[in-house]
Each structure stands twice: as structure tokens, then as C-alpha cells.
């Protein structure tokens, strides 16, 4: 049974109590503010071993295209959920004006129909304004429930961005799977 590298379970029997009066949110918010300057975005560690999920992407690629990112069958959108940033003044790896790419994201694997290769896609949300409202798409290739958060697309992936308000979904290329 494979264990997630990021959310590895610990075995605990000790009592744990956290009665906090201060917000723990502030650390990530501060990281987000620093990153927004436009530098290379770090992402949470991704476990690539055994996760090519090539088989799962094979359905979507049958009707996918590589030229128009405003359409739901754009090849990178095989597991996207939300409004496409390409329809909102942004692009697959560009956030619309006044919104911020999240340093964290979940990761899917999509096949590019032009070369038949599988690629890792970071589904980072653009955050800081309310819903764009254009081009709603939902695909669920290889998508898992929230207890496998790295592979879930319902989560508001704005952790580390200056705001947790969801605006649109992007699909940035990480590299070959």
C-alpha cells in the first residue's frame, strides 16, 4: 500500500490538545506574499513514483486538442475543475490581472495528443477575486477524494497565495510524467 509522501500518516497514541488563540494561517500567508513578486513558484513535493497514470489520461486525450485553451477539451484540462483562466484575461500559466497564482496545487497527468507523451500538470488556482464565471470545465481523470489532497480538484488551491478567494483555474506544465 503506497503512502503519500506529503501526508504520511503518523502512529500516535499520545493525547494531543491544541487550544490555540493565535492563527496558524499567518505563516503560509506570509510565504504567499513574498512569492507574489513573480519569482519561480515552489510547489509542494510531488510523489512521481508509480503515478504516471497514463492509463487514466487515455480517455480524455481521445478528444483533446492543443490549440485552444478556452475550450474544455484543451489537452492540459484532463483533470481540471473550475473556470478556465484563459477565458478570464489569463492563460494556462498566467493569472488574470489582480489575481495571484497559488504556490500550492494539485497535480494531474495529461497526455499531449501531438506527441502521445504524458505530462504532469499543476492545477494552480488564481486567487484574490471572486469567481471569473466564464468557461466552466470539469474533468476527473485520475482525480481522488480529498483525503488524497494532492490528487483532488475540489479543494480551493490557494494555500500560500495572499487570498483564499477562488477566481479561476490554470494548468501549468511541470514536465514529462
Amino acid at each position, binding site marked *: 500500500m503506497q503512502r503519500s509522501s506529503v501526508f504520511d500518516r503518523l502512529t500516535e497514541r499520545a493525547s494531543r490538545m491544541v487550544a490555540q488563540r493565535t492563527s*496558524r494561517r499567518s505563516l503560509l500567508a506570509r510565504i504567499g506574499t513574498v512569492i507574489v513578486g513573480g519569482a519561480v513558484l515552489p510547489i509542494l513535493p510531488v510523489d512521481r513514483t508509480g503515478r504516471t497514470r497514463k492509463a487514466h489520461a487515455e480517455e480524455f486525450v481521445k478528444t483533446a486538442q492543443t490549440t485552444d485553451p478556452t475550450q474544455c477539451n484543451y489537452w492540459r484540462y484532463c483533470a481540471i475543475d473550475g473556470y478556465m483562466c484563459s477565458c478570464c484575461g489569463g492563460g494556462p500559466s498566467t493569472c488574470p490581472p489582480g489575481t495571484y497564482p497559488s504556490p500550492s496545487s494539485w497535480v494531474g497527468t495529461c497526455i499531449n495528443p501531438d506527441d502521445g507523451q504524458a505530462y504532469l500538470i499543476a492545477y494552480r488556482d488564481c486567487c484574490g477575486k471572486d469567481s471569473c464565471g466564464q468557461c466552466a470545465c470539469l474533468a476527473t481523470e485520475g*482525480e481522488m*477524494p480529498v*483525503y488524497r*489532497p494532492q490528487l483532488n480538484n475540489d479543494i480551493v488551491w490557494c494555500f500560500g497565495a495572499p487570498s483564499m*478567494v477562488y477566481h479561476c483555474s490554470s494548468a501549468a506544465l511541470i514536465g514529462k510524467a
Partner: protein
Amino acid sequence: MAGTIRYGFGALLMAGLLAAGSIPSRAQERDTKGLPEEAVLDVAEEHTTAVLPEASPHWLYVLDPVFPHLVASKVYVIDGDSMKYLGMLNTGYVPNMALAPDRSEIYVAETYYSRGTRGERVDVVTFYDAKTLEPTGEVELPDGRFLVVPKKPNAVTTPDGRYLLSFNMEPATSVDIVDLEAKRYLGAVEVPGCSLIFPTGDRSFSMLCPDGSLLDVRFDESGAAEIRDNEPFFDSEADPVFEHAVVSTGSGRAFFLSYEGVVYEAALGEGAMRIEGQWSLLTEEDRAEKWRPGGWQLMAYHPSTNRLFVLMHEGDRWTHKEAGEEVWVFDVKAKKRVARVPLEHPAISVSITQDEQPLLFTLSEAASVSVFDGTDFSLRGTIEGVGDSPFLMYVQGE
């Protein structure tokens, strides 16, 4: 009476007022101080505010995150018998709600920004009087809450109604505990990467973990907690279970359903959940026709008849969010399907009232609610236009 009945909110209210005559209400005092005598006119009727009676088991609460403007969401209260609106709540950013077991209150875990979509963030649990639908107070969640398209197991009350448990992922995971009686924040239980909350007792709950196991958590009134992990009971890579499991604390049972249609039965007891067995929803013929479960809140349970209701569609793997074409009804004891209810409006969520003459509700992708008799599954009607993007349904006594 089958068929589609179209209700606009305003038309509904008007029809109700004119037809019903008197609605339980409170009269507003008319303030005529300082007005000249000739300005004070007799009125034909008082203008009042409706007050709801005690919640009926047939009432339906629909939570709509409102995708076009997620920061301002809604909860609709609908009378399942008359299929009329009873009222609504305005709620914040991707909220979660829970009904008090004694029907007196509604709790909403929600998030607000000081300037609507920006500014200072605050997360709260808001208390509502269940009859006046007015907020009566709030408790702040100092560490925030899980922001996600709303799922029922994000916020639940303990069976005795004393506490509200709110799941948080920041991305570190924890469960916040709110004392509903004292109206104060008790504390947070940090949990090792497991998610969602399934109550197992008055001071205990279980969570789902990435490796396919349950985490059992017990807490006490001081906020101290004890955590116990277990061996995996499902393969989280090959056949994960849906988040919307059903827990019936009243009957001490819970059911988890996997993407491939396997039901895992669990027994609740001693602050834990124990998996007792599993069976498949699907026959060989069903599999050949590619039937599989799918949707959002895709499973419901009726304890006294021991029946499961599951939204099913024909599709390949990875269509787990596809709307159901049918509701399949299963006798849990016999582990067999006993009915198929075809849906004119493919549904993402299903709910069954918990009383002896139940109503079955389905919520469609196109924001309609269909109401069926919960015993013979005849269609009573469909309410169109229930918000923008409703996802969750709540009924009393779950």
C-alpha cells in the same frame, strides 16, 4: 401528481400568502410617533414576518455555494410536502452546515472577507434559530476551516448536539471543536493528514486517511484528544471510497462506497468505527453495462427500512462525479437491489427523509429538486431554479 412544476421564488411566496390566509408571524409595531394625524392611515392588514413551526422531517435544506459568486452563498429551506420555499439563509464563502439534533438550531461554518472578496479573513460558526432563521450568535474559528466545494463531512454535530466539529486543512489537517452549549471555541485536534469527520459517538469521530484506513479520534470536554490509527480497509489507489459516506449514529451504522461500487459496512461503538463486511452493488450484468456510482452526495440511508439509495450512471472509470441517471435502492440485509428509479433530471445528490413515510429527494446538475415518494418511488414533482449551483441536501434526524 407527476410532472414539472415551475416555481419562481416570488410567485411562490405570493401564492402561499394569498391562499393560506394566516401564516404564523410576528406583527411589527407601527411607529406613528411624530406623524400628523392625517398621515396615519388605517391599513387593511398588518405587515408581518413569518416564523416557522418546528421543523418537519419532510423539510429539505439545500446548500448552494453559488459558483458564479462563491463568497455569497445560500441555504434554501423547502417544505418537501408542499414543495414550497419556507425561507433561506445567506451564508459566506464555501460554507458547511449542520442541523441541531433537537431541531432548535442551524449551524453554519463559513468564511468572510472584510471587503467581500478581499481584506481581512474571518472564519466563524454562525448560530441560527431554526424557526426565525435569524442569526443568534457566532463563534470564531481562529485557525480557519477547510475551503473546498462543500462536502457534508466537513462539519458535523456530535449526536448529542453538544459540539460542532469542523474540519480544517491549511494544508495541515486538524479538527476544530466548538461547544454549542457554551457558545465557545474549545480547541483543535491536530490529525496526521487524515480528512473529513464521521461521528462515532458523543465524544468521538473517525476520519479517512490517504492509505485507505480510518483514524479514530476521541476527545473530552477539556479538548484533550486521543488518536488511534487502523489498518487500511480499502485500496486508496485502485478503488477509493467516496467522501460522502453515510453515518447513522442512531442505528450505530455507517456505509462507505467505493468508485467501483463496493459497499463497506461499519459498526459504530466505543469511540471507533469497525468495518464489518463488504459487498458489491453491481451484478455481472450491471458491470457489463458499465453501471457505476457517481455524483456528489451520492448515497443516502433510511435506517428503519435498512435501505441504501445510490446515484448510478453508465460510464467508465474516472466518471465518479458524473450525474446519476437512476437511483438504485438496496436492501442492506439482503445485499440486493430492490428498485431502480429513473431520473428525468440527472442528479448529483440524493437524500431520503428519516421518518416512516419518507420522501426521496434528488438534486440535479441544473439546480432542480425532484421529490419522490420514498416508498413506492413515484414522482411527486420537480422544483426548478433552486439557486445557481446547489450541491448538498440536509434533512432532520440524519
